[in-house]
């Protein structure tokens, strides 16, 4: 089971196992990681090591929180694209959040991200989690627009 999941990571990212064997453990990725600026105390290198050791990590805080800022990639001596590895794990372990699901369903329906639809889909989540306090700020510049139907011009 884990074997196939690990293979999927390589398939999704286009990396080979050997590509992670070069990681020197210098932790420069951890020192520049945006999440550590706010005290998340994470080490992106854990992810590479686990993948190299054929272990599936789906409970690491980075899997949920990585913002894909590519700071690690920028500083890594090998330029390893850790955010893309994390995104692959996120997809394989089905740790997709409500917002991601809404985006995908919008792309399937309209071919594009139709914002009013996405907001409508996650509205209960937004209300429950206190996002309503941003609504006045957002309505300053957001407005309603009609969707484009798939295939139409």
């Amino acid at each position, binding site marked *: 089971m884990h074997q196939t999941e690990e293979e999927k990571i390589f398939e999704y990212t286009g990396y080979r196992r050997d590509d992670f064997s070069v990681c020197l453990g210098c932790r420069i990725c951890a020192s520049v990681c945006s999440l550590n*600026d706010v005290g998340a105390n994470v080490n992106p290198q854990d992810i590479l090591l686990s993948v190299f050791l054929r272990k599936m990590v789906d409970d690491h805080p980075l899997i949920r929180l990585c*913002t894909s800022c*590519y700071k690690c990639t*920028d500083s890594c001596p090998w330029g390893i694209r850790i955010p893309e590895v994390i995104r*692959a794990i996120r*997809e394989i372990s089905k740790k997709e959040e409500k917002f*991601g699901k809404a985006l995908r369903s919008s792309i399937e329906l309209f071919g594009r*991200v139709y914002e009013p639809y996405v907001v409508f889909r996650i509205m209960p989540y937004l209300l429950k989690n206190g996002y309503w306090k941003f609504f006045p700020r*957002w309505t300053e*510049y957001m407005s309603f627009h009609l969707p484009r139907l798939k295939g139409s011009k």
Partner: protein
Amino acid sequence: MIYAYYPGCSLKGSAKRLDDGVRRVFNLLGITLNEIPDWNCCGLVEYGDAYRVRLLSKKNLEKALPVSTEVIAPCPLCAKNLKESNEDSRFSIFHPLDLLTPQDILSIPAKRDLKGHVFFPYYGCLLVRPKETAIKDREIMEKVILYYGGEVTGTEVKDRCCGGNRFFVDRELPEKLSRIILERSCGTIVVFCPLCHMVLKSFSGERKVVYFTDVILYVLGEKKKL
């Protein structure tokens, strides 16, 4: 010169102002933008499968072919995805800032200057990282602002992450990350990305958040106020 124009999903909705701004700036420079017919989403960063993202972006490039092989995408994420899917280099993909040089912008006769205005050009992540898809000149906006007599702040936080990508997963993370950016800068925030705009607008309080095109259009007298 005719360019194929890929606006991207946000620019049709919440970032309409950026869309209008880009069209107007290029119009002033005498460059024609022809929107790619029936374009689709670029694939965002939501799919774990990089191949699937590239497939979506490749579809867009195919649709651009009858218009032009020179493609302009103003959203940093769309530009990154399109650049990465252009594996055989058949196309030339540009973010507007790849194409414009400070000289281009400064060549249009200005009607106003920026004296007395303080700006914080906030580049964010995907415009300057990863290296392969980054814009060439990371100081282009500073050059334009300084030329017109404006003041620039916050250069050490200009490429920090605002956490926009995880805004709807963890509300506190983008708030903390944006606070760092906001506390170490002052004045009007100049953004390039629709997502940065949304996040910084949510937390910026009284401070103005504008797109880079707004600043250019203001100087050129096309916009009455910032």
